[in-house]
């Protein structure tokens, strides 16, 4: 192995990969939420449909889509490698253990939370991304773009979907509450001048982003 692969296959290096991809995925969440806020416009979904048509066919977005998929893959792959290693590091567990006395629940259950998010991601892609990207949607009458909006209205009439989406956003919030500030620590970015701000910002970011996403299925279920 050369120095580069050695660096990023060490435990410290793999966490750096987790951290960088994690923060990149956080930036994706912001863009995704801002785009989705157009669902709240009272225009029968016109603005949202134009936006989603653009996202499905623009070349730059196509390219960023590949980067995004790679971000997810590296994040998930390193999580699996590290989790296996961490389990092997303690083959015999304690008969009596009280980790709640020294650490938060979210920090100890990032893998579980991540798995919930992964399952959600598959459901979510299947619901909206696959039909929007690969066809299967009806076109808006007299327009040259598809009607993703009507698909969303339909999906969120189903209380099971609404429940899956809201629960997953709670899992995402807990994942981010630990993950956001942890990512900065993993990069060694720690200073008494700005670390307290990063920690507070991380909590606010996690809650606001996830509230924003969770409000969409709830809005469609109760008000549309």
């Amino acid at each position: 192995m050369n120095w580069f692969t050695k660096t990023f296959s060490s435990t410290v290096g793999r966490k750096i990969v987790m951290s960088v991809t994690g923060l990149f995925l956080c930036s994706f969440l912001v863009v995704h939420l801002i785009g989705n806020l157009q669902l709240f416009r009272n225009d029968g979904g016109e603005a949202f449909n134009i936006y989603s048509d653009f996202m499905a066919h623009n070349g730059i977005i196509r390219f960023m889509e590949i980067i995004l998929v790679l971000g997810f893959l590296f994040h998930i792959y390193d999580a699996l490698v590290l989790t296996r290693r961490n389990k092997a590091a303690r083959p015999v567990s304690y008969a009596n253990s009280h980790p709640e006395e020294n650490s938060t629940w979210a920090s100890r259950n990032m893998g579980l939370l991540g798995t919930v998010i992964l399952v959600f991601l598959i459901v979510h892609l299947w619901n909206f991304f696959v039909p929007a990207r690969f066809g299967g949607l009806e076109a808006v009458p007299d327009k040259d773009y598809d009607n993703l909006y009507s698909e969303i209205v339909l999906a969120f009439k189903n209380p099971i979907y609404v429940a899956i989406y809201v629960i997953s956003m709670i899992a995402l919030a807990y994942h981010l509450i630990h993950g956001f500030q942890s990512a900065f620590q993993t990069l060694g970015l720690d200073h008494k001048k700005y670390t307290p701000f990063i920690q507070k910002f991380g909590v606010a970011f996690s809650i606001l982003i996830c509230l924003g996403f969770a409000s969409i299925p709830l809005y469609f279920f109760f008000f549309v």
Partner: protein
Amino acid sequence: MDLTLKVWRQKDKNSPGQMVTYPVKGISPDMSFLEMMDVLNEDLLRKGEDPIAFDHDCREGICGMCSLYINGRPHGPERGTTTCQLHMRHFKDGDTITIEPWRAAAFPVHKDLVVDRSAFERIQQAGGYISVNTGGVPDANAIPIPKSIADKAFDAATCIGCGACVAACKNASAMLFVSAKVSQLAMLPQGKAERKTRVENMVAQMDIEGFGACSNTGACAAECPVGISMENINMLRSEYLYAKATSENI
């Protein structure tokens, strides 16, 4: 005080172990936890049974030999305390106390509650030193070190290498120990010469020993008997990145 102890008993490295229950009577609240164990062991010896093996040395909280995972916490329920400095007044008459060895693949159980912590020694040998002769005493003002740096380096140097951080961590990660050893030397002028090679080699050895990765749960720092801070772990990471990006080692 009368207590019920549930203690991990294991004959040797290769034997399977199990939790065994022992009643102990007449314990004074002024005894240390290890003195309470001594009372139990004297009782076992009188009965002709094998006494419980546990590590201890100075019994003053400075040597790092004592360990024990007591009631689900390394060094017991009190913060900033080694097991030898934990007193029985923190328990109640009639309590049941579970006592287990540190659990980590890198810390195999020797016997009962004694684990082999030589993995820490090997990490130290990989770079936790300064290879210059001390020579004569330099003038006190010849090497200026800012007070804040001196304080931080000293705080990191208080690590007694007991392994509570590994025991507390859900991943059995040794990051707090390794980072204390790395940052203590990296901050001081005497340690600068080997700064890059040190962090590279110590992290590599840490991985070879089979410790887990750090999830930033903070459990290590919360349970550390001498209060080593998570800041050291973050310093290790920037040291590591800097070294990997700029060192001469391919």
